C-alpha cells in the first residue's frame, strides 16, 4: 500500500507539471480583433469533467434561488424537499432516508456527502452531517446536486443510495459584502458576515456564521414521574454552531478552507443517561482543506487534480447514574479522525464515439481514534487508535453507439489496508427516443466499507471479520419534456442489499460486536415533475411508492414509509421582487422498533420573500409546520422513547443586507 501511495503522488506531480506548463500559454481575448476572434478554435469547456461528475441516473438539483425562496435553514431542509428522500431527527443528529431505507439507530453512512467534490463523511463513523452540524451555512450554497442510485463505480464507499454534492457560491456571485441576521422560534438567532469579490484573476469568498438556539423544554411522557420533573427536559435542547469558510479561485485553481463546530444538548436521555440534565451534550467539529485544479486543453483533454486534508472531532458527554454511587457519573465518548489524500482524473475523447475518464484516488487515515471512559470513578471502556490506507482506481467510458444510444460503462476498484479489495461496476444504456424523451436503463453495485467504529468492536483475532455492505440496483428511468418547460421523470427500481452491518450480542459472553447480518430488498416507483415559467412561477412535485423488506423476516423495515409525496410552489406576487412559496411533504405510516407505528402526516411550510427591498435588502418570513401538525419520528435502540415528537409550528424572520 505505501507503494501505491507513492506512485499516486508521483502520477499527480507529473500531471500537475504538464498542465501548469500548458496553462501559461493563453491569448488575451479582450484585446483580440474581430478577425482574430474568427480564427480562434474553440473548446467546449465543461464537456468532459462535467459528464464524469454527472452520473447516469436520476439527478435533482436544488439551487440558491430555491433555498432562499423556500426558506430552507439546513441541508436537511433541502434534502427533505427532494423526491424519495426523508430526514428523521432524534434531537441530536439528522438521518437521511433514501427510497425507503433509514433504519433507526443506523448512522448516516449510506449517502456520500461532498462539498465542491470534497468528501465530507468522516473517517471514524463515516457520517454525513446534514443538520446544524453541517460544515457550511446554507446561504453559501450555489446548488445541491442529488445523484440517486449506487455510484461506487466513481466515488467508492458510502455512495450507496445517493451522492449529495454541495457546490458553493463564488466571490463574483457575491460581488460585495453581505450581512444576514435571522430570528426564529425557540430562541433561535443566526448571524452571518460574507464578503465576496473578484480581483482579476482571483475570486475570493470569506464567510463566518454563528447560530444559537435555546431550544424547547420538551415533554417526554416516558419520563413522567416526579423524580424526572414530570417528563419535562428543561434547557436540554440547545443548539449552537459556528462556522468559517474561505475560498479563493482562479479559472482553474480552486482552494477552500472550512471550519465548523456544533454543540448540541441531548434532551432524550439516550443510552440510559440521566433525564433532564443539560450537561449531556455532544460537540462535533470539522476542519477541511481542499485544493482543486481543473483544466481542459487541446479540445479533447480534460484534467482534474485534487488534494485534501481533514480533521474531525466528536466529543460526547453523557451523565448517567449508578444506583450504588450517589453522584452522577460523567461518561466521555471521544473520536478523532484525521486524513489526507489526493485524486487525479483524466478525460479524453477517442474517435468521436468514446469519452474515456480514468482516475486514481488515495486516502490515508492518519488517525482514527476512539475513546470512551467514565471520569469519576475512572473506567476506560475502550481506547482505540488505528490508521489505515485506501487506494482506488476507476475508469468510465461513455460510448456513443449512435445518435440515439449512449452506453455508459464504469468500474472502480478500491483497495483497503483494513479488509482488502472491492470492485464495483455500473452500466447504463441511455436512449434518446425522441427530442424530448430519454430512457435510461441502469445497473450498478455499490458498497459501504465497515468503518473504524464498527471494526473496533471486533475482538482482534476472532473469526468473523467484517466485510463491506453491498447493494445492487437495477433501474429504468424515463425523462420526458412536456410543453412550457414542464419536465417529468419517472423511475422504477429494485435494490438488493446484502451483508448489512448490525450489532450482534453474543448469547454466551454478552460481548457486543458488529457483524454482517441483514439482507434487505426494496422496490419502488418514483415520479418527479418540475416546471419553471418565465413569469417566475416555479413548481415541483414528486411521489414515491416503495416497499423495503427485510429478506429474512419478510417484514417491512422500521422507519420506512410506503408513500412519500412532495409539493413545492414559488409564485411571484404583484409588486417588485416579491415571492410567496409553499413547501410541503407527506409521509405515510412508519413502523417503529417496538412494533408499533408513527402515523402518516403532511407538513406545510410557507415563506414570503421580498428581494431588493430598498435595493440593498432581502426580507424573508417563514412559517414552518404552519398547521402545527403533531408528528413523530421512530426512536432508535438507544432511546427509551419509541417515537420522538418533532417540532410544531415555528417561524423565522431573516434580513439580508448587501453592500
Amino acid at each position, binding site marked *: 500500500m505505501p*507503494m*501505491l501511495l507513492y*506512485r499516486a503522488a*508521483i*502520477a499527480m506531480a*507529473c*500531471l500537475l*507539471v*504538464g*498542465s501548469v*506548463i*500548458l496553462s501559461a*500559454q*493563453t*491569448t488575451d*481575448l*479582450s484585446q*483580440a*480583433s*474581430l*478577425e482574430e*476572434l*474568427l*480564427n*480562434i*478554435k*474553440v*473548446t*467546449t*469547456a465543461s464537456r468532459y469533467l462535467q459528464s464524469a461528475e454527472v452520473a447516469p441516473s436520476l439527478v435533482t438539483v436544488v439551487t440558491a434561488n430555491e433555498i432562499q425562496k423556500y426558506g430552507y435553514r439546513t441541508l436537511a431542509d433541502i434534502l427533505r424537499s427532494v423526491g424519495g428522500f426523508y430526514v428523521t431527527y432524534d434531537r441530536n443528529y439528522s438521518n437521511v432516508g433514501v427510497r425507503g431505507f433509514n433504519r433507526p439507530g443506523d448512522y448516516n453512512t449510506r449517502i456520500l456527502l461532498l462539498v465542491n467534490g470534497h468528501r465530507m463523511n468522516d473517517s471514524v463513523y463515516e457520517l454525513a452531517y446534514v443538520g446544524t452540524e453541517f460544515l457550511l451555512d446554507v446561504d453559501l450554497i450555489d446548488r445541491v446536486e442529488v445523484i440517486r442510485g449506487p455510484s461506487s463505480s466513481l466515488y467508492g464507499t458510502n455512495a450507496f443510495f445517493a451522492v449529495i454534492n454541495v457546490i458553493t457560491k*463564488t466571490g*463574483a456571485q457575491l460581488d460585495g459584502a453581505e450581512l444576514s441576521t435571522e430570528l426564529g422560534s425557540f430562541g433561535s438567532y443566526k448571524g452571518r458576515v460574507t464578503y465576496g469579490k*473578484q480581483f*482579476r*484573476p482571483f*475570486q475570493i469568498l470569506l464567510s463566518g456564521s454563528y447560530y444559537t438556539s435555546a431550544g424547547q423544554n420538551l415533554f417526554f411522557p416516558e419520563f413522567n414521574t416526579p423524580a424526572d420533573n414530570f417528563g419535562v427536559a428543561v434547557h436540554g435542547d440547545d443548539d449552537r454552531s459556528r462556522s468559517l469558510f474561505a475560498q479563493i479561485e482562479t*479559472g482553474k485553481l480552486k482552494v477552500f478552507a472550512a471550519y465548523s463546530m456544533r454543540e448540541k444538548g441531548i434532551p432524550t436521555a439516550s443510552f440510559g443517561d440521566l433525564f433532564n440534565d443539560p450537561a449531556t451534550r455532544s460537540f462535533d467539529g470539522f476542519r477541511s482543506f481542499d485544493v482543486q485544479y481543473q483544466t*481542459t*486543453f*487541446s*479540445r*479533447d*483533454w480534460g*484534467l482534474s487534480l485534487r488534494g485534501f486534508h481533514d480533521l474531525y472531532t466528536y466529543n460526547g458527554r453523557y451523565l448517567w447514574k449508578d444506583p450504588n454511587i450517589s453522584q452522577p457519573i460523567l461518561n466521555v465518548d471521544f473520536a478523532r479522525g484525521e486524513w489526507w489524500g489526493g485524486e*487525479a482524473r*483524466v478525460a*479524453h475523447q477517442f474517435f468521436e464515439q468514446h469519452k474515456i475518464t*480514468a482516475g*486514481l484516488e488515495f486516502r490515508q487515515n492518519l488517525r482514527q481514534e476512539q475513546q470512551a471512559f467514565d471520569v469519576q470513578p475512572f473506567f476506560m471502556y475502550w481506547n482505540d487508535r488505528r490508521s489505515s490506507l485506501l*487506494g482506488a*482506481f476507476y475508469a468510465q467510458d461513455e460510448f456513443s453507439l449512435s445518435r440515439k444510444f449512449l452506453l455508459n460503462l464504469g468500474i472502480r476498484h478500491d483497495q483497503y489496508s483494513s479488509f482488502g479489495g472491492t470492485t464495483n461496476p455500473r452500466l447504463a444504456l441511455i436512449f434518446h427516443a425522441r427530442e424530448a424523451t430519454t430512457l435510461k436503463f441502469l445497473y450498478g453495485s455499490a458498497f459501504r466499507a465497515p468503518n473504524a467504529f464498527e471494526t473496533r468492536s471486533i475482538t482482534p483475532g476472532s473469526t468473523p471479520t467484517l466485510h463491506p455492505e453491498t447493494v445492487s440496483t437495477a433501474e429504468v428511468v424515463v425523462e420526458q419534456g412536456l*410543453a*412550457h*418547460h414542464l419536465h417529468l421523470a419517472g423511475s422504477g427500481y429494485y435494490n438488493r442489499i446484502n451483508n448489512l452491518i448490525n450489532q450482534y450480542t453474543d448469547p454466551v459472553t454478552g460481548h457486543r460486536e458488529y457483524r454482517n447480518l441483514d439482507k434487505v430488498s426494496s422496490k419502488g416507483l418514483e415520479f418527479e415533475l418540475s416546471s419553471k415559467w*418565465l413569469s*417566475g412561477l416555479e413548481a415541483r412535485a414528486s411521489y414515491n411508492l416503495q416497499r423495503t423488506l427485510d429478506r429474512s423476516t419478510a417484514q417491512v423495515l422500521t422507519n420506512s414509509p410506503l408513500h412519500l409525496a412532495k409539493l413545492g410552489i414559488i409564485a411571484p406576487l404583484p409588486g417588485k421582487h416579491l415571492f410567496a412559496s409553499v413547501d410541503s411533504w407527506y409521509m405515510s405510516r412508519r413502523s417503529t422498533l417496538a412494533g408499533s407505528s408513527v402515523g402518516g402526516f403532511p407538513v406545510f411550510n410557507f415563506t414570503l420573500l421580498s428581494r431588493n427591498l430598498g435595493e440593498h435588502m432581502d426580507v424573508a418570513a417563514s412559517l414552518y409546520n404552519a398547521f402545527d401538525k403533531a408528528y413523530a419520528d421512530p426512536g432508535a435502540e438507544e432511546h427509551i422513547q419509541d417515537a420522538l415528537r418533532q417540532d410544531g409550528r415555528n417561524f423565522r424572520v431573516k434580513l439580508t443586507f448587501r453592500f
Partner: protein
Amino acid sequence: MRRILTIACFLALAVTAAAQSARAPEYEVKAAFLYNFAKFVEWPSPSSAPSFRICVLGRDPFGLALSNIVQSKSISGRPIVSVQLQSPAEVRLCHVLFISQSDPEILKQVLERTRGLPVLTVGESADFLRLGGSINFVLEQDRVRFEINLGAAESHHLKLSSKLLAVARVVNVGGGAN
C-alpha cells in the same frame, strides 16, 4: 498500478504536445465577440444610463469570462457592466442582450419583450434569427461565426458598422423582424 502511472505520465506529455494551436474555451471567445459587437454597433441617442449593460438571460454559460473581458472597458465614456438577468422583465435595461435559451417558445416570448427597444439581441440557437433575433452565433469547424438579421437590428434602431457586416453572414429573414 505501474501501468496506470505510465499512462498518466504519457497523457500529460501528449497533452503538452497537442496544445500548440491557438485555442480558447468557446464562451471566452463568445464573450469577446459580445464586447466587439458593442464596439461596432451604434445605439440611438446616448441614454442617460450611467453604464453600458451587457445582459445574459437564462443559464449563464460564461462563468467569469464575460466580466473578465468587459472589466475596465467602456463604450462612449460609460463603463461596461455584465449583468445576469433574474427575469425577462429587465430586458429594457440592457444594451446587449445575450439569450442562452434555445426553446423556441421561450425565445419568442423574450424577443417579443424587446420589440422596438434599443437592445441588440444575441443568441445561439437555430431558430434565433427566424424568431426575430438580431445576431446569432454558430460554430463552424470549431470556430465561432455569427449571422446577422439586418431587418431585426434596424427595427431596434441600431446601426451596424460595415466592419461588422463584412465578417458576418448577413441573412434576410422575411417578416421575421419585429
